[in-house]
């Protein structure tokens, strides 16, 4: 197992090097001149040049690249110009916010989608099946920012059930001391239940928004995969042997149907990280998605590079986890590096 993980990680290194080079070149190819942007509205040509020098942008590209990789090797992602902070620290602070939201969204989605998919597959053509079809179609065809805005409008603005969409906590609570960076966990560790309640209620709407968006692929995949398994011979044998329908479906069919669902889950997770950008904007969520977009708008190289690199590392790890999960779920799958 360990050698396999080691080998997989080795294979990831060339792709990460590729990511470093491509993001570096891409950000440099962006239109716009950061020096002119940051020199401010009233800058003369000389002022722009002064800024350019200060930022090291007057150097040849190759020299900038070596300086960048050298800094990277020392764990220095550079400084963001828009927020003025070191990129590594910002990503460290913001990643848990995005991760907490995405994971919660995914969990909510799984809790609804998998039973829905299983039920739809066991009763094809019934009202459950139609319900499954309608919800998934609706979920996937509504753009996330739109769902988010509608939820805010209804539950915050009209009904007043939900707290103000102002980020992770009500403004008058202070953040719990960081242990995991997940407020739901950290507030419990700090035994601050009021803050826990606030963090949870802030999470409900954005997590629901993400869940609605990700319902479709999970439910559809569960349904399709269950249908295939249910019509296979071992299920027929199990039924013929007189096992109860519950045992047949949960113990035999569902377990065998899980592999494609896990694959879909990993894909959905990556989607959600992308969809996060919009949800974070709508809910003023201090995550990495909104951070990266703002950096992109102002041609701020360092955060964009840092963001892409972090995402690349996360994908590598995610793929690894999924591969390990395959082995755990299905003993026939043995991945040799």
């Amino acid at each position, binding site marked *: 197992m360990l050698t396999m993980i080691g080998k997989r990680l080795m294979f990831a290194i060339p792709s990460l090097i590729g990511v470093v080079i491509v993001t570096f070149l891409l950000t440099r190819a962006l239109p716009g001149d950061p020096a002119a942007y940051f020199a401010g509205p009233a800058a003369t040509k000389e002022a722009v040049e002064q800024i350019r020098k*200060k930022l090291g942008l007057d150097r040849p590209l190759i020299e900038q690249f070596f300086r960048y990789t050298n800094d990277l090797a020392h764990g220095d992602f550079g400084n963001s110009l828009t927020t003025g902070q070191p990129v590594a620290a910002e990503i460290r602070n913001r990643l848990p916010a995005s991760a907490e939201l995405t994971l919660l969204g995914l969990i909510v989605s799984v809790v609804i989608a998998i039973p829905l998919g299983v039920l739809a597959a066991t009763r094809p053509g019934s009202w459950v099946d139609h319900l499954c079809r309608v919800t998934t179609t609706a979920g996937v065809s509504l753009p996330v920012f739109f769902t988010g805005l509608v939820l805010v409008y209804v539950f915050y603005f009209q009904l007043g059930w939900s707290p103000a969409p102002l980020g992770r906590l009500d403004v008058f609570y202070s953040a719990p001391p960081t242990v995991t960076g997940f407020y739901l966990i950290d507030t419990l560790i700090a035994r601050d239940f009021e803050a826990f309640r606030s963090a949870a*209620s802030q999470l409900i709407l954005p997590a629901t928004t993400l869940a609605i968006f990700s319902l479709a692929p999970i439910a559809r995949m569960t349904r399709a995969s269950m249908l295939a398994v249910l019509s296979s011979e071992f299920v027929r044998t199990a039924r013929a042997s007189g096992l109860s329908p519950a045992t047949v479906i949960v113990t035999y069919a569902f377990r065998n149907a899980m592999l494609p669902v896990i694959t879909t889950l990993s894909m959905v997770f990556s989607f959600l990280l992308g969809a996060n950008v919009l949800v974070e904007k709508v809910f*003023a969520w201090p995550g990495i998605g909104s951070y990266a977009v703002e950096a992109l708008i102002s041609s701020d190289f360092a955060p964009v590079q840092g963001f892409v690199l972090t995402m690349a590392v996360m994908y590598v790890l995610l793929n690894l986890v999924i591969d390990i999960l395959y082995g755990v779920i299905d*003993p026939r799958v043995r991945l040799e590096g």
Partner: protein
Amino acid sequence: MKRRDFLKSATGLAAGAALPAMPSVISSAQADARSETLLIVSEGGPNNLDIHGVGTNVPGYEVSWNCYDRLLSHEMKSGPGGVPYYDRDKFKGELAEDIKIDDMSVTFKLKKNAKFHDGTPVTAKDVKWSLDRAVSVGGFPTFQMSAGSLTKPEQFVVIDDYTVRVDFLKKDKLTIPDLAVIVPCIVNSELVKKNASEKDPWGLEFTKQQTAGSGAYKVTKWTAGTEVIMERNEDWVGGPLPKIKRVIWRMVPQAGNRRALLERGDADISYELPFKDFQEMKASGKLNVVSLPFSNGIQYIGMNVTKPPFDNVKVRQAIAYALPYQKIMDAVLFGLGNPMFGAAKDKATEVAWPQQHRYNTDMDKAKALLTEAGYANGFETTISFDLNFAGVNEPLCVLVQESLAQLGIKTTINKVPGANWRTELNKKEMPLFTNVFSGWLDYPEYFFYWCYHGNNSVFNTMSYKSAEMDRLIDGARVAAAAGDAATYDTDVKGFVDLAYADIPRIPLYQPFVNVAMQKNISGYQYWFHRRLDYRAMAKG
């Protein structure tokens, strides 16, 4: 982990994940905190807490304004609609208790009880160090100082611990006002020097992250892109102690949410909303909406005069007669702007800026002028705008495009991303474009110096050059410094007339700064920098 265990734990996790719905509960201690706290929501936040920093953005100016003091500041007067408005011509001491203006210098006596946030007293050496810093760090702060002829550290002289003299390089009416803008703020020199390095002699990295001033507020927490929390400085001597104890400034990117927060009463103040929202909120009357014109600011259509067809004054005049001015006022701004067009034919030019020009939408005249210029069948061109302000710029350009099409002029709209806009302006190649310019210092010759003078600054976006124009602008500057009112008046009227006859840029309107706030918020003041001054505000 075994396969079976995993499956079991997965089902367990799913069962435990059903979250109960929880209403938000606000305890009474928090209700008290709310009444002394100002909650501001805006789209963007600061990227640097120090205006002397590299590339500090406009929200950063707001922090600097409230957390640092200057030697002097402006008095207030009653502005349009009774809203307090800074008085361009009246000054009062902020850190200075006495200001003595001589022929070629000004002497400031500092308040002896003024202290920085860490308790060290504010002395003359801090003032000198801070002003030296402003003229030396380069970039925007140095540029702004030079606008008031403040360029050399030798100009700032320490007389004794509590007395500083600023020597003038030359007579310039803008020197004193320039000492009251945001840039010449007084920094805690000992504290910053301790945290400076050889590479960073002015300690910019240190002041980027924390405030080191003597101002009415200090930043206690700043999460870039998310929030800024400021607490009142109980020992502030720059003015009466502010009523607001704590300011929480949250960044809410979605304009619709900012409006919802205001209407639900959760946020106290917001700006940067679409004009339509402001207009609707004004009409509903649930909130206070303050709309005031930008001082010395104009949105205009500019034309590059170095290239055909706009090198021909007849073509420029034709365009000036073809713009759909009133439509822009109604459909783009929802009336939230001062028209800069259609002055009466016989109205005398005033010694003021901005003022209306005499062009009006008149398609027949435009057609005639265009034919005279030899473009009876029109031509093709491109109109560019800054996407950062697409909310106004895009519909505006579409209206212009429609209107010009009636003259046979085919316009393509070119949307320039915000990051690229300055670069494009600097190149001076765009034939036709819309933009805003507004100067902190509210003097006609200041505006014209940047926008029309032949030394071709970034803001002379039209590349306009005219010996007569330069003579009038320089004349007005000299006359202002010498106090020669008669020459000044003639020169100002002269350059306004010339700018409108040659019409390289067509003023459309004077934009409004719009701020929406709860009814229980009072004390909003308009400042030349158009950001909020928390020091005069009160809640309840």
